[in-house]
C-alpha cells in the first residue's frame, strides 16, 4: 500500500545538490576554452563540447536518480542551495539552485537531447568553416539553458534566460553573411526582448513585494505560501491580485521565449539558423524555457485558486496557448519551407503546452513538453538530414520520393510525424496531447479551448501528412541524387525515434507515473485509469480527429506529385484564405505597419529634436565658451605671460651668477663643504665655551 507512505517535503541538501552548479558550469567552461581554440582545431572543439555535455548528462542522471530514490522512499525531494550574492541596505540578493522532480526531469531532457544534437551537428556542420565557433556557441547555449533549469532564484534564472537569448541570437545569426539570417537573429532578439521587459517588470515587482527572489527557501521563498499570501492580499489594477499581475508579467516573458501568439513572429524566421540549432533551440530546449518558467512559478500563477477552480493568470495563459495552437497550425498548412512548417508546428505545440499548463497543471504541460522535445527534435533533425541529402534544398515542393533514397531518415521522420500528430496508443505524442485535451474538457471556465485544441490536432495531422507526402512520396522533383546522411546524423535520429515512441509509456492514464512523480504522489498501475468517465470517449474523439486529419492530408496530397510551379490544391480551391495563410496572416506586415512604423516616426522626431533643439543649445553654449576662451587668451598673453617672462629673466640672471660657483669640479665642492664644517665646529665650540 503505497498510499500509506506520506510524501513529506524533504528540504536538506545532499552531495549532488552541492555540485549541481557543475552541470551548467562545465559546458560554459568548455565554450570558453573552445573560444580560445584556433579555427582549425575542429576535432578538439567538438570533443570538448560533447565531452562537457556528456559530463553534464551523467551528473543530471545522478541527480535524477537521487530524486527518484527520494521519491521511491516517499519524499517529495526539493533540495535547494542558496547563497547571498550581494547586499544593499538590509536586503540581500540571494541566488541559488534547486533540485526537485521538475528540474531533474528537465535537466535529463535538455542534456540528453542536447547531447544527441551535438553529435548530430558534428555530421551536419562538418563542412562549415566556423565549426569551432559553432560548438563554442552551442555549448554556451547548453550551459545557459541548464542554468535556467537549475536556477532557484528568479534573478539567476533571468540572467541565464538572457544568456540563452544572446546565444540564440548568435546561433540564429550564425551564418551572418546571409542578410536574411542576420535579420532573423535581430528579429528574434528584439521580439524576445519585448517579452523580457515585462518579465523584468514582474521580477522587480515580486522583489519589491516579497523582498526575495528565491523560489524555495524553506518557507521564506517568494513562491511559497507565506509570500503568496502577502501577494494575494495586495490588489493591483483590473481587480487582479498582485500575484496574478506578476504572473501575467512573467507569462509575457515566457510568451516571448516560447513564441506565443503576439510574440511568435521571430520563431519561423529563426529557421535561418543551422538545422541543429533549430532542433536544439526551437524545438527542444529554448522555446521550452518559457513553458518551464511557467511551470516553475506555477504556485504564483495558481495562487488564490479555489479547489478545482482557476485564476485569471491561468485563464489568460490557457486562452493564449489555445489560440496560438490553432493559429500557428493554420499557418503551417500553407507553408512550403520544410523547416518553416516545423517551426509553425512548434509554435502551435507550444500553445498546447501553455494551454495544458493553464488547465491541467504542471504535469500535463511538462509531459507534453518532454515528449514534444523528443519528437520535434527528431523531426527537425530529420528535416536537417533531408536538407543535407538534397543539397541545402528546403522547399518541399522541390523534393519527393525520398523514402527510397534515405530510408533511415524516412522511417524515423515518419515516427516523429506520427508522434506529433498523436497517432493513437502507440506514440508518446498521443498520450501527452490526450492529457491536455482531457484537462481542457474539464476546464471550468469555458469549453472554447477544448474545441480549439481539437481543431489544432486536426490541422496538425493534416499539415504533417501534407509535408511528409510532399517530401518522401511521389516522384522526385529537383534535388537529384539525394543521399542518406552519415551515421553521426542517423544514429541520433534512431535514438530519438525510440524515445518518441517509448516515452508515452510513462504518461498513460493507466499508469500516470510522470504526473505523480512531478506532483510527488505515489504512482500506481490501475487499468481502471482508462475507465474514468469520459476518458474513453475523449480518446476515441481525438483518435478520430487524428485519423481524419491524416486521411484528408493523404487524399489531398498523397502520391500526387505536383510540380513546384503549379498551385497548391487548396490554393486552387480557395485562393484568398490560402494567400492569407501563406503570408502568415500578415502578422509581420501588421507589425511593420504599426509598431515599426511608429518607431520610425518617433526616431525621426527624435532626430529632428537632436538636430534642431539640443544641437542648437549645444552650439550656443559652445559659442559662449569660445568667446570666454578668447578673453582668457588675451589676458594670458598680455597680463600673465608678461609678468612671468620678466620674473624668469630675473631668475636666469640670478642663476647665471650662482652658476659661476658651479665649477663642476668635485673638489671645489668638497672644499666648500669642509670649510662649512670648520665653521660649524668652531661655532659649536665657541657656544660650548660660553
Amino acid at each position, binding site marked *: 500500500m503505497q498510499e500509506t507512505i506520506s510524501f513529506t517535503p524533504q528540504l536538506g541538501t545532499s552531495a549532488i545538490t552541492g555540485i549541481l552548479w557543475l552541470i551548467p558550469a562545465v559546458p560554459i567552461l568548455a565554450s570558453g576554452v573552445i573560444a580560445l581554440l584556433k579555427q582549425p582545431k575542429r576535432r578538439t572543439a567538438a570533443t570538448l563540447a560533447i565531452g562537457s555535455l556528456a559530463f553534464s548528462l551523467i551528473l543530471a542522471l545522478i541527480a535524477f536518480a537521487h530524486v527518484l530514490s527520494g521519491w521511491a522512499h516517499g519524499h517529495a525531494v526539493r533540495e535547494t542551495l542558496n547563497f547571498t550574492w550581494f547586499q544593499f541596505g538590509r536586503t540581500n540578493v540571494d541566488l541559488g539552485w534547486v533540485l526537485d522532480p521538475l528540474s531533474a526531469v528537465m535537466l535529463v531532457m535538455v542534456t540528453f537531447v542536447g547531447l544527441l544534437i551535438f553529435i548530430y551537428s558534428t555530421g551536419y556542420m562538418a563542412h562549415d568553416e566556423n565549426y569551432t565557433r559553432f560548438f563554442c556557441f552551442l555549448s554556451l547555449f547548453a550551459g545557459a539553458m541548464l542554468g535556467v533549469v537549475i536556477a532557484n532564484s528568479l534573478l539567476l534564472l533571468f540572467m541565464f534566460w538572457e544568456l540563452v537569448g544572446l546565444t540564440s541570437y548568435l546561433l540564429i545569426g550564425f551564418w551572418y553573411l546571409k542578410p536574411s539570417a542576420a535579420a532573423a537573429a535581430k528579429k528574434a532578439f528584439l521580439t524576445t526582448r519585448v517579452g523580457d521587459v515585462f518579465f523584468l517588470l514582474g521580477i522587480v515587482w515580486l522583489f519589491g513585494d516579497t523582498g526575495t527572489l528565491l523560489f524555495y527557501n524553506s518557507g521564506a521563498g517568494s513562491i511559497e505560501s507565506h509570500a503568496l499570501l502577502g501577494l494575494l492580499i495586495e490588489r493591483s489594477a483590473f481587480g487582479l491580485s498582485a500575484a496574478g499581475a506578476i504572473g501575467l508579467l512573467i507569462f509575457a516573458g515566457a510568451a516571448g521565449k516560447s513564441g506565443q501568439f503576439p510574440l511568435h513572429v521571430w520563431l519561423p524566421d529563426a529557421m535561418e539558423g543551422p538545422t541543429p540549432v533549430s532542433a536544439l533551440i526551437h524545438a527542444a530546449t529554448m522555446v521550452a524555457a518559457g513553458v518551464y518558467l511557467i511551470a516553475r512559478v506555477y504556485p504564483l500563477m495558481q495562487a488564490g485558486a479555489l479547489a478545482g477552480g482557476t485564476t485569471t493568470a491561468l485563464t489568460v495563459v490557457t486562452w493564449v496557448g489555445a489560440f496560438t495552437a490553432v493559429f500557428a497550425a493554420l499557418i503551417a498548412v500553407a507553408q512550403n519551407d520544410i523547416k518553416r512548417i516545423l517551426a509553425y508546428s512548434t509554435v502551435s505545440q507550444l500553445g498546447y503546452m501553455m494551454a495544458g499548463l493553464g488547465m491541467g497543471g504542471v504535469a500535463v504541460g511538462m509531459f507534453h513538453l518532454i515528449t514534444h522535445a523528443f519528437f520535434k527534435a527528431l523531426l527537425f533533425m530529420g528535416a536537417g538530414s533531408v536538407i543535407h541529402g538534397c543539397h541545402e534544398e528546403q522547399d518541399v515542393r522541390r523534393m519527393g520520393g525520398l523514402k527510397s533514397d534515405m530510408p533511415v531518415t524516412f522511417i524515423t521522420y515518419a515516427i516523429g510525424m506520427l508522434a506529433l500528430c498523436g497517432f493513437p496508443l502507440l506514440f508518446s505524442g498521443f498520450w501527452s496531447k490526450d492529457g491536455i485535451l482531457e484537462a481542457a474538457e474539464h476546464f471550468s471556465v469555458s469549453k472554447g479551448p477544448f474545441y480549439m485544441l481539437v481543431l489544432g490536432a486536426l490541422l496538425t495531422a493534416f499539415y504533417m501528412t501534407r509535408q511528409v507526402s510532399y517530401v518522401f512520396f511521389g516522384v522526385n522533383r529537383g534535388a537529384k541524387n539525394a543521399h542518406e546522411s552519415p551515421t553521426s546524423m542517423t544514429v541520433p535520429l534512431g535514438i530519438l525515434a525510440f524515445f518518441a515512441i517509448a516515452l508515452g509509456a510513462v504518461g498513460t492514464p493507466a499508469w500516470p507515473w510522470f504526473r505523480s512523480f512531478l506532483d510527488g504522489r505515489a504512482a500506481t498501475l490501475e487499468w481502471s485509469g482508462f475507465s474514468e468517465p469520459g476518458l474513453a470517449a475523449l480518446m476515441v474523439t481525438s483518435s478520430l480527429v487524428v485519423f481524419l486529419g491524416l486521411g484528408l492530408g493523404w487524399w489531398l496530397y498523397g502520391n500526387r506529385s505536383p510540380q513546384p510551379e503549379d498551385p497548391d490544391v487548396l490554393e486552387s480551391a480557395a485562393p484568398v484564405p490560402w494567400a492569407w495563410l501563406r503570408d502568415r496572416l500578415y502578422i509581420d506586415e501588421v507589425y511593420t505597419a504599426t509598431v515599426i512604423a511608429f518607431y520610425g516616426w518617433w526616431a525621426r522626431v527624435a532626430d529632428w529634436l537632436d538636430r534642431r533643439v539640443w544641437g542648437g543649445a549645444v552650439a550656443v553654449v559652445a559659442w559662449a565658451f569660445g568667446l570666454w576662451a578668447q578673453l582668457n587668451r588675451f589676458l594670458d598673453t598680455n597680463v600673465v605671460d608678461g609678468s612671468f617672462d620678466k620674473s624668469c629673466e630675473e631668475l636666469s640672471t640670478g*642663476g647665471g651668477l*650662482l*652658476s*659661476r*660657483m*658651479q*665649477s*663642476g*669640479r*668635485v*673638489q671645489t665642492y*668638497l*672644499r666648500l663643504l*669642509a670649510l662649512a664644517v670648520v665653521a660649524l665646529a668652531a661655532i659649536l665650540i665657541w657656544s660650548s665655551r660660553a
Partner: protein
Amino acid sequence: MNPLTGYLLVAALLFAIGLAGALTRRNAILVLVGIELMLNAANLNLIAFWRYGPHPELLTGMMFAIFSIAVAAAEAAVGLGLVIQIHRHAHTTDLDAMSRMKG
C-alpha cells in the same frame, strides 16, 4: 695625557690627512683613497669612545664601527666602479677634466 685624547688626536690627524688627499689629488681613485682614510679615522673614534666610554659592555661604538666598515666596503666598491666607468667614457681619471656638470 688621557689615552682617549691620544686616540682622538690620531684620528683627527688621519682625518685631516685623508681630507687633504681628497681635496688635493687630481686622480679620482686617490680621492676615494682619501675618503676611505677619513672613514677609518671616524671608525677609530668610535672604537676609542667605545673602549673608554662609560658602558663598553653595550658594544654601541663597536657595532657602529663594524657597520661603518661594512658600509665603507660597499661605498668603495660602487665608487671604484663609477671611476672605472667614467674612465671608460672619458678615458681619464683626472677630476679636473671631469667638469661636465658645471652650471
